[in-house]
C-alpha cells in the first residue's frame, strides 16, 4: 500500500471507450450510412473489449503482487493545480476498483454485444453506441479516479449518459421527461456531494493535509476526529453530505424517484446503467471511503436505516407493478437498499459482494426482459404475456436462473451475498433491520416469482398478431444471457460464509477495507439465521404459486378494482405526485415570482411603468396643479413629473417669470437672515 506501482496502461482502460465514443459521436452518422450498423458496432464494441482485456491485465498484475502491495497507479497529468489544492488526473487500481473495472468493462461489454441485436434497425445506432461508450468511459473514470473530484467527474458523466440514454428516443416527451427527471434528481444529490467534498477538503486543509486523493484521505481520517462544525462532528457531516450524493445516484429514499422512470430507455441501457453499474456507484463510493464512514457511526446508522427502508419500500411497490421492467426497477432499488444496509452495518465487503452478484443476476434479468420485450414487439405489460417458456427457451432458462438467484435460492449467487448481509445485520445486533431485511427477502421471492409465473406460465394472453410472431431472440442476444446466467450461479462462491469455506472476497478486499473485528458467533447461530431467510423466501414463492400460477391472471386486471392498499402500492405511495407538486411546482413558482419581481417591481422602480399621479416639488407651489402622492417611488416617473412641473413654471407669462426672480431674492434673504448670521 505504501509503494504504489507506477504503470502507464491504466489510462487506456478508461480512454479506449472515450475514443470509441468520440469516433462514433463525431463520425458515426457517416460510418453508419456508408458501412452500416456493423461498422458502428465494431467501433463501439472493440474499445470496451480492449478495456476488459486491459482490466484483466491489471487484475493479473495485482494478483502477482503481495496482498499488502496490491496497488497500481497511473498518474496522467496535473489537472487543477491551485495553491494547496492540487488535483491530478490519475487512475488507480486496487483490489476494490479491480473488481469494479472487471464488472463494468465485462458486463458492459456483454451488454454492448447484446445491444447489436436489440437495437438492430435503429437509424441512430451510432448515437446509441456513442452514449454507451461514453457511459462506460465515465463509469470507469468513476471507479479508477484516484481522488474525489475525478470520481465526481465520472459521477456526473454517468448521470449525463443516463440522461442521454433514457431520453434516447427523444421524439417522445415521456422519455425526455424521464431523462430530465433522472438528471435533475441526481443533481440534487450532487449538490450534497460537492459540499461534502468541500467540507472534507477544507477540514483536512485546516489540519495541514488538504487533499482529495482517496489514499491520503484514508490515511488522514484520524485528523477529523475531534473537529466540529455547527455542533456536529465533521466526519459525520462529510459522510452525510456524501451520502446525499449516493442516495441520488443509487436511488435511495428520498431520491429514488428517477429510477423507475428511467426504464423509458432501451432495455440494455436499463441493464447496464440502472442495474449493474451506475446505480452501484454510491455503494462503491462508500466502500471506497470506508474508513471515513467508519469514523462516523451516526451516518452509518442513518445509512442502514435508509437502506432497509428503501429495500422494504421498493419491494412493496414492486409487488403490484404490471410493467415487466418496472418490477425489475423496483427490485433494483430494493436490492440497492440491501447494499446500503450492508454499508450501514459496516459490512462493506458484504455490500460489495452483493453489488457484484447483483450485477450479474440483475443484468441477466434485464436482458432477459429485453429479449421478451423484443419478442413481444415492444409490449411491456405482464398482463399481456404468459406462456412464453415454449417460444423462448433460452430466455426462459436464463431468466429462471436469474429469478432463482435473486430470490435467494440456496447455492446460487444471490443467496450467498444476501445472506452475508443478513448475517452481518444480525451479528451487529440490528435485529429490527434484520427482521425487515428478512421480510423483504420474502417479498423479493414473491414478486420475482409473480413476474416469472405471469410471463412464462399459463396461456399466452397477447393478441394473435403478437402471438403468431413470438420467437426466440438472435444468438447475439442470447449468448450474453447465458454468460450472465452462468455468472449468477458461480460468482457466489467467492464469498462463502465462514462455515462453508474460505471467503475469497474477504481476503481479496482485506487491504482496502478495514472491517471492525466482530465478535465470534457459533455456526449454529449462523445456520439458524440463514434458515429463517430461506423460509421467508420459500413462503414468498409459495404465495406467488398460489396467486399467480394456480390462478391465471386476467389480461384486464385493473388495479382500480383492488383494495385501497393495493392502489396505494400500485401508485407508488403517490410520492411522484407529491414531489411534483412540492418541489417542481415550488421551484417553478419561485421562478415565476422571481421573473415577475424583475419585470414589475424592479423595472417599475427604475423606469416607472406604473401610471400614478406623482409628486410635485415644494418648489413651485404657486403653480401646483398636482396631488401629492408620497407613496410613489418610481424614480423615472418622479423625474419626469418633476421635470414637467419645472417646465410648467414656464407659463409664458412674463409676470410669473418675474415672480420667480423676486421669489428667489426673497428666499435668499430669508436664508441669510435665518441660517447664515
Amino acid at each position, binding site marked *: 500500500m505504501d509503494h504504489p506501482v507506477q504503470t502507464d496502461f491504466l489510462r487506456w482502460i478508461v480512454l479506449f471507450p472515450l475514443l470509441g465514443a468520440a469516433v462514433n459521436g463525431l463520425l458515426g452518422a457517416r460510418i453508419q450510412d456508408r458501412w452500416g450498423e456493423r461498422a458502428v458496432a465494431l467501433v463501439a464494441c472493440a474499445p470496451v473489449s480492449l478495456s476488459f482485456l486491459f482490466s484483466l491485465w491489471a487484475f493479473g498484475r495485482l494478483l502477482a503482487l503481495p496482498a499488502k502491495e496490491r496497488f497500481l497507479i497511473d498518474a496522467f497529468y496535473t489537472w487543477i493545480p491551485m495553491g494547496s489544492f492540487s488535483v491530478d488526473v490519475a487512475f488507480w487500481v486496487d483490489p476494490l476498483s479491480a473488481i469494479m473495472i472487471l464488472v463494468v468493462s465485462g458486463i458492459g461489454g456483454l451488454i454492448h454485444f447484446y445491444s447489436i441485436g436489440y437495437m438492430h434497425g435503429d437509424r441512430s445506432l451510432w448515437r446509441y453506441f456513442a452514449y454507451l461508450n461514453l457511459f462506460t468511459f465515465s463509469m470507469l473514470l468513476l471507479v479508477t479516479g484516484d481522488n474525489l473530484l475525478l470520481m465526481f467527474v465520472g459521477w456526473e458523466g454517468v448521470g449525463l449518459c443516463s440522461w442521454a440514454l433514457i431520453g434516447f428516443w427523444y421524439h417522445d416527451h415521456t422519455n425526455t421527461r424521464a431523462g430530465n427527471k433522472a438528471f435533475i434528481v441526481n443533481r440534487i444529490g450532487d449538490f450534497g456531494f460537492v459540499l461534502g467534498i468541500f467540507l472534507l477538503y477544507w477540514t483536512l486543509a485546516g489540519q495541514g493535509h488538504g487533499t482529495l486523493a482517496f489514499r491520503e484521505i484514508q490515511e488522514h481520517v484520524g485528523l477529523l476526529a475531534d473537529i466540529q462544525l455547527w455542533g456536529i462532528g465533521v466526519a459525520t457531516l462529510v459522510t452525510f453530505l456524501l451520502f446525499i450524493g449516493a442516495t441520488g445516484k443509487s436511488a435511495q429514499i428520498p431520491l429514488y424517484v428517477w429510477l423507475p422512470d428511467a426504464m423509458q430507455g432501451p432495455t440494455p441501457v436499463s441493464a447496464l446503467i440502472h442495474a449493474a453499474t451506475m446505480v452501484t456507484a454510491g455503494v462503491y463510493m462508500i466502500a471506497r471511503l470506508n474508513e471515513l464512514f467508519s469514523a462516523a457511526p451516526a451516518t452509518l446508522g442513518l445509512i442502514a436505516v435508509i437502506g432497509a427502508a428503501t429495500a422494504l419500500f421498493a419491494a412493496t411497490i414492486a409487488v403490484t407493478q404490471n410493467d415487466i421492467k418496472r418490477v425489475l426497477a423496483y427490485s433494483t432499488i430494493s436490492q440497492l437498499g440491501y447494499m446500503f444496509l450492508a454499508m450501514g452495518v459496516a459490512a462493506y465487503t458484504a455490500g460489495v459482494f452483493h453489488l457484484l452478484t447483483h450485477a450479474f443476476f440483475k443484468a441477466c434479468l434485464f436482458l432477459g426482459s429485453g429479449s421478451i420485450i423484443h419478442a413481444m414487439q415492444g409490449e411491456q405489460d405482464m398482463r399481456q404475456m404468459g406462456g412464453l417458456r415454449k417460444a423462448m427457451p433460452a430466455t426462459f432458462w436464463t431468466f429462471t436462473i436469474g429469478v432463482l438467484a435473486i430470490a435467494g435460492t440456496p447455492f446460487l449467487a444471490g443467496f450467498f451475498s444476501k445472506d452475508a448481509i443478513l448475517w452481518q445485520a444480525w451479528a451487529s445486533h440490528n435485529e429490527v433491520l434484520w427482521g425487515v431485511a428478512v421480510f423483504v427477502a420474502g417479498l423479493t421471492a414473491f414478486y420475482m416469482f409473480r413476474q416469472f409465473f405471469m410471463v412464462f406460465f399459463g396461456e399466452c394472453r397477447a393478441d394473435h398478431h403478437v402471438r403468431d410472431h413470438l420467437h426466440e431472440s438472435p444468438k447475439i442476444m442470447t449468448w450474453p444471457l447465458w454468460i450472465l446466467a452462468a455468472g449468477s450461479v458461480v460468482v457466489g462462491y467467492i464469498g462463502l460464509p465462514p462455515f462453508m469455506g474460505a471467503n475469497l472476497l474477504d481476503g481479496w478486499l482485506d487491504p482496502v477495507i478495514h472491517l471492525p473485528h466482530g465478535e465470534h458467533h457459533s455456526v449454529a447461530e449462523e445456520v439458524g439465521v440463514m434458515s429463517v431467510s430461506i423460509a421467508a423466501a420459500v413462503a414468498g414463492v409459495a404465495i406467488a404459486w398460489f396467486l399467480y400460477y394456480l390462478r391465471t391472471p386476467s389480461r384486464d386486471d385493473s388495479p382500480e378494482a383492488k383494495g385501497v392498499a393495493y392502489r396505494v402500492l400500485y401508485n407508488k405511495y403517490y410520492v411522484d405526485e407529491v414531489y411534483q407538486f412540492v418541489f417542481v411546482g415550488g421551484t417553478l413558482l419561485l421562478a415565476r415570482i422571481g421573473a415577475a419581481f424583475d419585470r414589475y417591481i424592479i423595472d417599475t422602480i427604475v423606469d416607472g411603468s406604473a401610471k400614478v399621479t406623482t409628486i410635485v416639488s415644494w418648489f413651485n407651489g404657486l403653480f401646483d396643479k398636482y396631488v401629492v402622492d408620497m407613496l410613489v417611488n418610481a424614480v423615472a416617473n418622479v423625474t419626469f413629473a418633476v421635470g414637467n412641473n419645472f417646465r410648467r*413654471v414656464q407659463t409664458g407669462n412674463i409676470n410669473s*417669470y418675474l415672480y*420667480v426672480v423676486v421669489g*428667489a431674492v426673497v428666499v435668499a*434673504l430669508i436664508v441669510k437672515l435665518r441660517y447664515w*448670521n
Partner: protein
Amino acid sequence: MDLGNVASLSLFYPEIVLAGTIILLTILDLVVANKRAMAYLGLAGCLVALVATVDLYGTESTLLFHRMVALDNFSLFFKVVTLAALVGAIWMSIGSGEVRQVHLGEYYIVLLTCGFGMFFMASANNLLMAYLGLELVSLTSYILTGMLPHNRRSAEAALKYLIYGGVASGTMIYGMSWVFGMAGSLDYAAINAAMGEAGGNQVALFMAFVFILAGFGYKMAFAPFHMWSPDVYQGAPTPFTGFLSVASNAAGVAILIRFFYPAVSTLGQEGSWAFQAFPALQWTDLLVALSIITMTWGNLSALNQRNVKRLLAYSGIAHAGYIMMGLVVLNNDGLNAMLFYVVVYLIMNLGAFLVVMIVANATGREDMDAYRGLAWRGAAFPAVCMMVFLASLTGLPPLAGFIGKFLLVAAIIEGQFYLLAVVAMINTVISLYYYWRIVKTMFLDEPAPEDGPVAATASAVPLLGALAVLTLVLGVYWAPLLDYTTGSLGFFMQ
C-alpha cells in the same frame, strides 16, 4: 500699470477695428444694395479683430482709460471667444433662411455691436463699465430677437426679453448702488479694499450682492434668473440664438468672474491662487445651491421638450449650472475649468444650432418630428455631426465635452464638494435621456412618408465639419487648449 485715455488707445486696437467695422457697415448700409456683401465685410472685420486680439495676447496686464477697462489675458481670452462666436454666427447667418427675411444691413450692424458690448463685459474693471457693457449687449439682443418681421414668436420673445432684462439689470444696478454707497467707489480694486476692512451692514451687503447676482445671472442664464431664455431661444432667429447661447453665456461668465474675484475675494498666500470669500458673503454656499438648482432645473425641464431649440435652451441652462461649479472652489483650477468649458461649449453648442438651422432651412420646422430618420433622409452628415455634438454635450469621452466636465468635476472634487460632484454626475445621466432622444429620432426612427429629403445648406457644411472635428480633437488632445486657458488667468493684479 494704469494708462490715461490717449495712451490707452495703442492697446485698444481690437475694439477700434470692431468699432470701425460697425461704423463702416452703417455707412455702407446706406449706399450698398447688395446686403450680402455686408456679411462678408463683417466677417472680415471680425477676423481682423481676431488677429489683433491674438496679437495683443500676452501683453503685460494693464488698466486702460483711467482704470475703467482692464487689458489682460483674461479679457483677451473672452474677446477671442466672442469673436469666434461672432464669426460662427455670421457664417451661420449667411446660410440661414430666416435671416434672409430681415433687414440684413441692420442685422449685421447690431450683431457686431452686441459683440462689441461683450468686449466690455469681459474687460470692465468698474461697476459703471460693467453696467454699460451689459446694457449694450442687452439692448442689441432685444433688437436682434425681435428682428424677424411679421413674426409673432419673435416679437413676443423680444418683449419678454426686454421686460425681463430691464428688471434684471435694474435690480442689478440697484444692488450696485448699495455697494457703491458702502465702498465709496466704483472701482473693483477700491471695492475690494473697502470690503477687506469689513464694517457696514452685513445683511445689506449680502442683499446687494444677491441683486447683482440677479443681473449677472440673467446674462449667464442660471436659475432662477433663466426664465427668459427658453422663450427667447425659441423666438429669435436661429443664428442669433446660437450666438446668444454661447457668447452671452461666456460674457456672463467673464463679468461674474471679474466681479467676484478681484472685487470681493481675498487672495490667499502669494501665488497660491487660493481665495477666500469674505466671511459675510456666504457666496460659496450660495453658488453651490445655485449651481445645483440650475443644472437640475435645466435638465428636468428639458426632459419632455419637443422643440429642439427650446430643448437646447434648457440644456444651455443646465450647462450654465455646470460652469458655475468652477466658481465655487475659489481657485485657479476651477477658473481654468470654467474657461475651458466655455470654449468647448462654444464649439459644440454652435454646432448643434447649426444643425438646427440646416433642418429648419429644409423643413421650416424646429420640433423633434422634423428630425425623424434624419440620417436616412440624405442628411447623414449633419446627423452624425449632431450626434457628436450631443454626445459631447452629454459629456461622453473621447469628446471635448467630456474633458470640460472632467476638469470641472476634478476641480470640485479637489475642493471636496462631493455632493455637488455627485449631483452634477446624476444630472449628466438625466441629460443623456433628452439629448439621446434627438439621436434616437435621427437614427433609430424610420422617416414618415411625408418627411421629405433634407439637403444640407451648402455654406454650413464646412463649418459643421470643422466644429465636429474640433469637438473630437479637443476630446483626445486637449493639452494646448488647457495651456491657453491656464495662461488666460492673468488678471489678478493689484
